[in-house]
């Protein structure tokens, strides 16, 4: 009469009684460790975190000491306490080995807790892990089903690749066990092993087939799960299992048609878990396979129509059915049925169901657009749902449904949605509205109205691409310019402090078309009162002085005001306002203030020509990015469009020279909210190899807009009249070189590239051959100290090639010179511009200067 023969029934067994007595004796020697529930009570009674920590630490110390003393009797209780402590968040790694000892024990209680500890405390990364493998192997061969069950469960939870490889054979054997309890656990264990180590799949294939002919639901469901994983794992296995489709259909049918089975019933549905798993497997098998799909059509239709939908269970099954129908090669009628089910889901009160429906519709809308259109009104209703996830889904789905027929109604709803939307949606929504408007707008006026509404509704959340889109559209649509300018004026007159983009667009339009604003005809005015000059100028003054408007907006406004000086008659007032900005603390505004003031003073004669209206801008689609209109840079490309080829290169060159600026002109794509700094870097590297760090100069978007409008002005200028080079150099060199009026020397070769703080750099040009010009650079030191570590660097636009020969030296003595030769090749015969960086050390100070030279005579290339 052995203990093992009778399982764990210790009564009336000599050996067991002996054991019990021994343990009792031990216990008398040592005090009983605290019970688990007492520890939990104590910890919960702690009023502060510090108190809790002290209780925990005390107990941990005690537990540690018992581990050292190899206490067999209470080990399980101590580990249980340790696991509780671990769940609270305290470290418990010292318990790992003890778990192993528990697992190796013969007592079921010990094993139960030991395996739980293993699953909680160990993960694949520990090496204690490997020691378990032996214990597992033993337990997988135990005569007690529950012990085998524990081992399989643990293996399924924490199997590492090595463990999986070692024990796969055992698991496979157990899959064929006569005990259903073991079989189902072994099947799922195999599922986990295959997930970890896909190569081991072959071993389990033979045993898997028979799992489907079971009656036991547990084995069935685990078998189906296993087969699904195998099929997703390898296409060959997928083909191998295609022949079970009829079996699956039969099982499913039996489930549906069989009567009430109390054991597996959930709210009137027979074993929904199994049904869903089978449906999923059918989906995997039927994908891309017409024959298999055909075999399932009937059963799918049957499930779709027969399932009770009053409870969540029924909807779960319907959901899975719809997913399957959508994925396989089902016939048209079935797909319509599926979409209708989703439509019904949308009307369901349960928000989970609505969410699931919207999600699925989003995935299938591109495949079955017409079917989904039918539910458009319901989807639009969902835009007003209180749950934010549902609103988001409904919004995305709405955009997918817009077409030329429904654009007006959809847009109305979407604009209402935009007004009330949460900030995180506004940016995405507005960009999407703009895109859709561009694609499907019925006419220009409607398009412009919509854009205006977007600018008003989305306020500051509008992305930059919307501003440029709007500006481009206005400039293109000559017929509507008066109308839209009036509308923008109306919008501007209201509270616009949180609508900076709107201000930018409005002031741009008013600046351009100020004369139309004043002289608007009756049809255009409709509900807007024509403003007078003074009203406009007063509003501008308000905008410019308001601290809530950001610098970019003010830049737009200031530029626009200057333009108005040619369209309005009250130039004095305008001049006054503009000149006050020449002492603005903000450098961008100050620069504009100063330079525009010049237009009223010294260069009065140029003003009208300079500020003429821009020609319509063309839309320049960037590659295949859906309608990313590259607004500002298009302005440049357009304006230089007199002689397209040459001018385009010139504009590219100009943009390239400004390095980061040009790329920051690129529109931020709607799904890419990050500023395009990485792009700018690569642009720079192409061009400014020598001057890598130069782009640190002017990288902020603010500055870009500055240069945009700055360039805008220059380029406007390029159209009608040839500007004296002085102004150009002012705009582009900016900062402190405005006093450096470069004398354009008509007889070729020398030009003054740089002159500051006693360092003067002269370029002497020499034509080498057709495309090459040699520049002799002479740097002169007009100070009384040495300039040491003199470094001269230059960069040219992409279309040029630059070669720099070694300088004559790096130290310039007082009144001394250093020379260097540059060779420039210009295959495209464009205008040469060069950016220079000069650095040297004088009197212990490090000096760094940067400048641009654009005054190269053009005829040197001829």
């Amino acid at each position: 009469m052995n203990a093992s023969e009778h399982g764990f029934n210790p009564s009336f067994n000599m050996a067991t009684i002996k054991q019990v007595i021994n343990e009792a004796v031990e216990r008398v020697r040592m005090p009983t460790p605290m019970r688990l529930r007492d520890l939990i009570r104590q910890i919960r009674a702690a009023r502060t975190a510090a108190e809790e920590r002290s209780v925990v630490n005390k107990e941990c110390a005690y537990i540690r000491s018992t581990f050292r003393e190899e206490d067999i009797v209470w080990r399980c209780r101590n580990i249980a306490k340790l696991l509780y402590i671990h769940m609270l968040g305290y470290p418990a790694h010292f318990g790992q080995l003890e778990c192993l000892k528990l697992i190796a024990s013969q007592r079921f209680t010990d094993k139960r807790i030991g395996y739980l500890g293993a699953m909680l405390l160990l993960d694949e990364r520990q090496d204690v892990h490997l020691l378990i493998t032996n214990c597992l192997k033993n337990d997988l061969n135990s005569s007690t089903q529950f012990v085998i069950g524990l081992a399989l469960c643990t293996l399924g939870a924490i199997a590492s690749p090595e463990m999986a490889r070692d024990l796969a054979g055992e698991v496979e054997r157990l899959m064929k066990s006569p005990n259903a309890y073991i079989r189902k656990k072994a099947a799922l264990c195999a599922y986990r092993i295959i997930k970890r180590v896909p190569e081991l799949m072959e071993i389990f294939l033979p045993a898997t087939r028979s799992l489907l002919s079971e009656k036991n639901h547990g084995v069935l469901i685990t078998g189906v799960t296993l087969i699904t994983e195998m099929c997703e794992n390898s296409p060959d296995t997928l083909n191998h299992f295609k022949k079970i489709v009829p079996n699956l259909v039969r099982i499913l049918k039996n489930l549906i048609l069989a009567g009430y089975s109390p054991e597996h019933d959930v709210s009137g549905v027979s074993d929904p878990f199994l049904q869903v798993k089978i449906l999923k497997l059918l989906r995997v098998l039927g994908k891309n396979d017409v024959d298999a799909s055909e075999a399932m059509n009937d059963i799918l239709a049957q499930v779709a129509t027969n399932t009770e939908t009053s409870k969540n269970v029924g909807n779960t099954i319907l959901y899975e059915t719809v997913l399957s129908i959508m994925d396989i090669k089902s016939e048209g009628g079935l797909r319509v049925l599926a979409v209708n089910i989703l439509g019904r889901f949308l009307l369901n009160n349960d928000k989970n169901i609505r969410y699931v429906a919207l999600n699925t519709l989003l995935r299938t809308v591109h495949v079955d657009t017409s079917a989904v259109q039918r539910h458009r009104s319901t989807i639009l209703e969902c835009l007003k749902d209180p749950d934010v996830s549902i609103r988001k889904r409904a919004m995305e789905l709405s955009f997918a449904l817009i077409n030329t027929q429904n654009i007006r109604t959809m847009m109305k709803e979407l604009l209402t949605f935009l007004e009330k939307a949460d900030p995180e949606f506004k940016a995405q929504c507005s960009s999407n509205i703009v895109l859709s408007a561009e694609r499907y707008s019925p006419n220009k006026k409607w398009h412009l109205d919509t854009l205006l509404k977007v600018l008003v509704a989305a306020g500051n959340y509008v992305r930059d691409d919307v501003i440029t889109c709007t500006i481009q559209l206005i400039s293109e649509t000559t017929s509507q310019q008066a109308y839209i300018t009036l509308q923008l004026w109306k919008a501007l007159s209201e509270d616009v402090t949180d609508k900076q983009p709107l201000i930018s667009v409005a002031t741009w339009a008013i600046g351009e078309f100020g004369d139309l604003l004043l002289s608007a005809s009756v049809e255009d005015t409709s509900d807007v009162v024509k403003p007078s000059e003074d009203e406009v100028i007063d509003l501008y003054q308000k905008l410019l002085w308001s601290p809530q408007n950001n610098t970019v907006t003010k830049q737009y406004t200031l530029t626009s005001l200057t333009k108005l000086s040619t369209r309005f008659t009250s130039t004095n007032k305008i001049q006054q306002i503009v000149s006050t900005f020449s002492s603005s603390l903000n450098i961008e505004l100050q620069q504009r203030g100063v330079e525009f003031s010049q237009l009223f003073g010294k260069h009065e004669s140029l003003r009208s020509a300079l500020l003429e209206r821009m020609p319509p801008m063309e839309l320049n689609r960037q590659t295949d990015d859906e309608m990313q209109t590259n607004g500002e840079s298009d302005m440049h490309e357009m304006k230089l469009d007199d002689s397209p080829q040459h001018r385009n290169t010139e504009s590219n060159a100009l943009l390239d020279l400004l390095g980061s600026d040009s790329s920051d002109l690129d529109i931020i794509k709607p799904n890419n909210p990050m500023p395009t700094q990485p792009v700018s870097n690569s642009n720079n590297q192409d061009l400014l190899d020598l001057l890598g760090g130069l782009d640190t100069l002017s990288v902020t978007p603010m500055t870009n807009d500055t240069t945009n409008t700055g360039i805008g002005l220059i380029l406007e200028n390029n159209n009608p009249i040839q500007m004296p080079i002085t102004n150009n150099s002012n705009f582009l060199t900016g900062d402190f070189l405005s006093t450096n009026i470069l004398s354009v020397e008509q007889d070729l070769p020398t030009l003054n590239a740089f002159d500051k703080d006693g360092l003067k750099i002269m370029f002497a040009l020499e034509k080498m051959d057709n495309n090459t010009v040699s520049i002799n650079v002479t740097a002169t030191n007009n100070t009384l100290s040495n300039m040491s570590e003199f470094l001269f660097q230059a960069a040219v636009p992409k279309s040029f090639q630059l070669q720099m020969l070694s300088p004559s030296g790096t130290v310039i003595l007082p009144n001394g010179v250093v020379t260097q030769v540059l060779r420039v090749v210009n295959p495209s015969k464009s205008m040469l511009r060069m950016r220079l960086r000069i650095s040297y050390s004088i009197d212990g100070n490090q000096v760094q200067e940067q400048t641009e030279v654009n005054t190269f005579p053009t005829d040197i290339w001829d």
Partner: protein
Amino acid sequence: MQFMLLFSRQGKLRLQKWYNAHPDKLKKKITRELITTILTRKPKMCSFLEWRDLKIVYKRYASLYFCCAIEQNDNELLTLEIIHRYVELLDKYFGSVCELDIIFNFEKAYFILDELLLGGEIQETSKKTVLKAIASQDLLQEEETPQGFFEDHGLG
């Protein structure tokens, strides 16, 4: 399923079951983040949310949140059913289960979960069978512990 978490309204963890290997630190981080995210959701919101690249399904029963993380191609509604089935099992076992039961008998909660799910997938769809298995194992434990003279043996 990738993992299941049970936590109280105050954010205290009551049960965590992970079906994928992660280092402890990462587990703590994920747990903390997820608990905060879910606790900030309003009661009217739907039970699903997207988090990292997983779908999170959660449901509140009295003072406990049951939260599961599933993969993109898993059925969310089915997960809700699984959670409900687990609660039913706990209810049957403890007799009208409440949070305290789970706190003081957390190891039993784990045992029941391990009879319902293995490797993140359902292993038994019959409530009766699961409860029977648990009862048998409990019996095994009891038989090991002779009552009478030496109570107090075992886990306590």
